[in-house]
């Protein structure tokens, strides 16, 4: 796994994720019929940012062993 630095994390974070100050929770607390496609894209971007922060925390050894799971599912070997 490539070690991610804070600088790398900044570049990982989509500008879209930070453009709207609303949190995932605030967006998802609305009637979904009122959510526009750009707002759904906001939710997706923020979830990706969450994942990026998790990957960084793992790279820095900050994730507890009990929550670690061996993940390499994008390779051909299962």
């Amino acid at each position, binding site marked *: 796994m490539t070690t991610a630095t804070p600088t790398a994390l900044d570049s990982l974070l989509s500008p879209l994720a930070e453009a709207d100050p609303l949190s995932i929770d605030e967006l998802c607390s609305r009637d979904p019929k009122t959510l526009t496609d750009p707002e759904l894209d906001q939710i*997706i971007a923020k979830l990706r940012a969450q994942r990026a922060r998790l990957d960084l925390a793992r790279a820095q050894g900050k994730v507890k062993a009990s929550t670690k799971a061996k993940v390499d*599912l994008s*390779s051909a070997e299962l």
Partner: protein
Amino acid sequence: MTNEPTLQNQQHVDALDLPAWNGLPHNSSFAEIPGYASPLQIAWDSTSLGALKTCPAFYNYTVVQGWVPRHQSVHLIFGLHYHAALEHYDHAKSRGEDHHSAHRAALRYVLEATWDRDLNRPWDSEDKYKNRETLIRTISWYLDQFSTDPLETVQLANGKPAVELSFRFETDYPSPTGHNYWLCGHLDKLANFQGHTYIVDRKTSKAQLTPEYFSKYSPDNQFSLYALASKIVYEIPVHGLIVDGAQVAITLSDFRRGFVERPEPVLEEWYTDLGEYLFLAERYARTGYYPRNDKACGNYGGCAFRSICSKSPTSRDQWIKTGFIKRIWNPLAVRGDI
């Protein structure tokens, strides 16, 4: 296989008119047989067969009589939404949409499916592991992780993706109705990997996806039925099964896949065992007496009917009406298409 089931040439079942049995409502899974104290199940799926194998009394309550807890299991709800969202993604990709568009479609689906229209608020599972937030996160992270998936969904001859496939086939075990017993079910997905076709079954769990987690799928009633169905129903030779696991924790979701094999002798043995269990089901239906397996009461967090079985037999009917509602489980029901 010593008793080779009848081959039913069905690659995908949309609706199947089963023969009308004497005294059996059309497309019902049960038969009323003269002289039998209880209805006898003729069409079986892994859920109903698994219930019988777990405990005959549990099978009677939940399948024959159709009692379910008033509050549906959060694991069941979470799993159903997870499956449905990924199915929406598969269908969108099959229609030619790109990953992001399909991802958005899946997200929109699950947000709407988990919105309580009556209360005008999000679904509240009251569970710290399996809730709307972790559901949305798990779905989104899974779709991104597998945006380039080594498992390629099989495309059926009708152009639709091979997802949520319903199947039915006739066994060669005769029932007292004069007709044979049937086996039914639904496959999550058929996918190609490294030149072979696999049955893929998606699972969500709070547990870490260790080798021990995957080892519990052998032996396994559901997977053995799927492996048998793939041999008999589908013309696509299936190489094996893959458990597509998702760990759902409070602050993260992780994914891992594991192979599950079903060698021919193991399938033959499962099929032989099936005959034994069908024989037992006949006896229970004939006498109306379903014994309790009191070694299974504590499994999977405790049987829902433990409180009922612990009561005096003469009072159980009243207690069950208090804590449970009726929901008829019909293995013959085909899941809706998208």
